[in-house]
């Protein structure tokens, strides 16, 4: 490239991109985030108590993603604005230097032809000065390029860790989408590819719909989202995240002048702090594996729980999966040693006991209608929970996050907490619930399994 070649690019068009990206940063990082927060609050007050925590886990994931995306867009927008400004300055400087160099060259030739040695030297020096000015403009642009490239690469690394330096945009789009989605959601790579190559909102929406249809339904979605993000870590990590976010927002609230390198640096630092908090809070495979291990060791015993967790997370080491054993964990060791055996005993007992409750619920003439319904529903949950526990304890079905969630839900319902909370409402519909199974139940005890299925289906989809 010649010294006087004007750098290509359209700073005006780049500024228009920056304006749109800034608007999108506000839309995703604030408007959408705020809407999600408001809907989440409404959901928390409308959901049955047992499901609020799991819903909050999923909402927190989405909320943090929108906040972090808003910040990332601001960073990318800032980098593009930085480049547009440097490009425009370089273009003007090179154009000016080129024009003045051409003029000096004309005068230098004239002076040389007329033999005016002093003028010839002076114009030659002018030519050199303009060449230096053009070189300096290119140098300044190179420096900005390095800074902008580093910032943009940092953003790519953030969303697509370990990406090769030559990763194609469509691949980054696919990998970032798959990496940020919960493991239970299957984002179709081909649909993602189509949505990127042919930008259309409906196509992007199709990707989302397909993912949901392919995912676990109903309550299991909550369970799996909860699995993605271990709730025990949520509070501490969330407060760190909010702290970092406050620093960023305080800076942003003062309408920072991002063209000032010091302000821009402080802004980037605040943003990095926020993103670091986000990433450290992001569900890691290690946490997932530990979640699975801790919850399945009571059913399977330490060794089999470890094997089970390895099956779901083959890339992790034993210490990673087991984590650190705290004091309480050590105290619980004798109990855990007994529970795999107990699971094999209590699981079938749950089926028997639950079935008995269901049977007495429809045959005991002394029961009030609401008590009858409560006993029946609790019995059904105990039976199904017992069946799943038994299957897991004997290794008939995999002890995955969904199965564990079913057992947990069955436990909650079986102790009657949920039923008690809703007992007045249940009383209203009790005749229908009991009526739906009473005929079959009265004929033979074996028909109770059918009834259990009906109630289970009614409760959990």
């Amino acid at each position, binding site marked *: 490239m010649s010294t006087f070649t004007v*750098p*290509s*690019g*359209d700073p005006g068009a780049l500024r228009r*991109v920056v304006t749109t*990206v800034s608007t*999108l940063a506000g*839309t995703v990082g604030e408007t959408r985030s705020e*809407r*999600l927060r408001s809907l989440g609050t409404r*959901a928390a*007050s*409308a*959901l*049955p108590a*047992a499901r609020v925590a799991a819903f909050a886990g*999923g909402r927190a994931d*989405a909320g943090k*993603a929108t906040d972090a*995306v808003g910040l*990332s*867009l601001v960073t*990318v927008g800032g980098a*593009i604005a930085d480049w547009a400004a440097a490009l425009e300055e370089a273009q003007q400087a090179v154009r000016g230097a080129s024009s003045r160099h051409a003029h000096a060259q004309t005068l230098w030739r004239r002076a040389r032809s007329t033999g005016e040695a002093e003028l010839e030297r002076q114009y030659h020096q002018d030519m050199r000065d303009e060449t230096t000015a053009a070189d300096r403009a290119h140098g300044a642009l190179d420096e900005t*390029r390095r800074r902008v490239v580093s910032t*943009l690469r940092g*953003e790519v690394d953030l*969303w697509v860790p370990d990406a090769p330096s030559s990763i*194609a*945009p469509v691949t*980054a*789009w696919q990998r*970032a*989408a*798959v990496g*940020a989605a919960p493991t239970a959601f299957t*984002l179709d790579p081909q649909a993602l590819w189509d949505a*990127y190559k042919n930008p259309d*909102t409906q196509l*992007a929406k199709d*990707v*989302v719909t397909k993912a949901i249809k392919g*995912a676990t*339904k*109903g*309550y299991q*979605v*909550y369970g799996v989202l909860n699995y993605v993000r271990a709730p025990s870590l949520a509070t501490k990590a969330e407060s760190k995240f909010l702290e970092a976010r406050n620093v960023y927002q305080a800076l942003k609230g003062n309408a920072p002048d991002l063209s000032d390198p010091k302000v821009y640096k402080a802004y980037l630092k605040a943003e990095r702090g926020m993103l670091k908090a986000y990433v450290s809070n992001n569900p890691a495979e290690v946490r997932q594996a530990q979640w699975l291990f801790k919850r399945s060791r009571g059913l399977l015993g330490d060794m089999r729980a470890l094997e089970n967790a390895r099956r779901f997370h083959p890339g992790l080491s034993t210490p990673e999966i087991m984590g650190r054993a705290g004091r309480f964990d050590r105290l619980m060791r004798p109990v855990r040693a007994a529970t795999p055996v107990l699971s094999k005993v209590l699981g079938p007992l749950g089926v028997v006991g639950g079935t008995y409750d269901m049977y007495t619920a429809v045959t005991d003439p002394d029961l009030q209608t609401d008590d009858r319904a409560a006993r029946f529903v609790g019995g059904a949950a105990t039976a199904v929970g017992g069946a799943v526990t038994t299957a897991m304890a004997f290794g008939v079905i995999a002890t995955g996050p969904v199965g564990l969630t079913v057992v947990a839900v069955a436990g909650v319902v079986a102790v009657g907490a*949920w039923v008690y*909370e*809703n*007992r007045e*409402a*249940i009383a*209203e*519909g*009790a005749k229908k*619930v009991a009526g739906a199974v009473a005929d079959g139940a009265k004929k033979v005890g074996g028909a109770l399994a059918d009834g259990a299925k009906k109630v289970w289906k*009614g409760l*959990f989809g």
Partner: protein
Amino acid sequence: MGFAGGDPRELQQVSTGLSTLSSHLAGDATEIARQGRSAAAHAGDPQVADLAETALAAIGGVVVATAAIVQGLSEGATTAGTQLRRATGQVPQ
């Protein structure tokens, strides 16, 4: 009839709101990717062009995943509302 442990009507409204939010996020993702292409077309320098498009594509991808989570929450809210209605006999089994 009141529900002590949940409110199916409110859940339905929340579900609709979440579904709309998911659609909006999907639209945002598309627009972010489009801006990446535009930045690449006007950047001039090939390295800056490539990275600007890639960075915005990655961010757009994260927004798609977020839209998926929000849609999951929407369908979960619908399911929870339906389960409450069924369990309390408001709709036939």
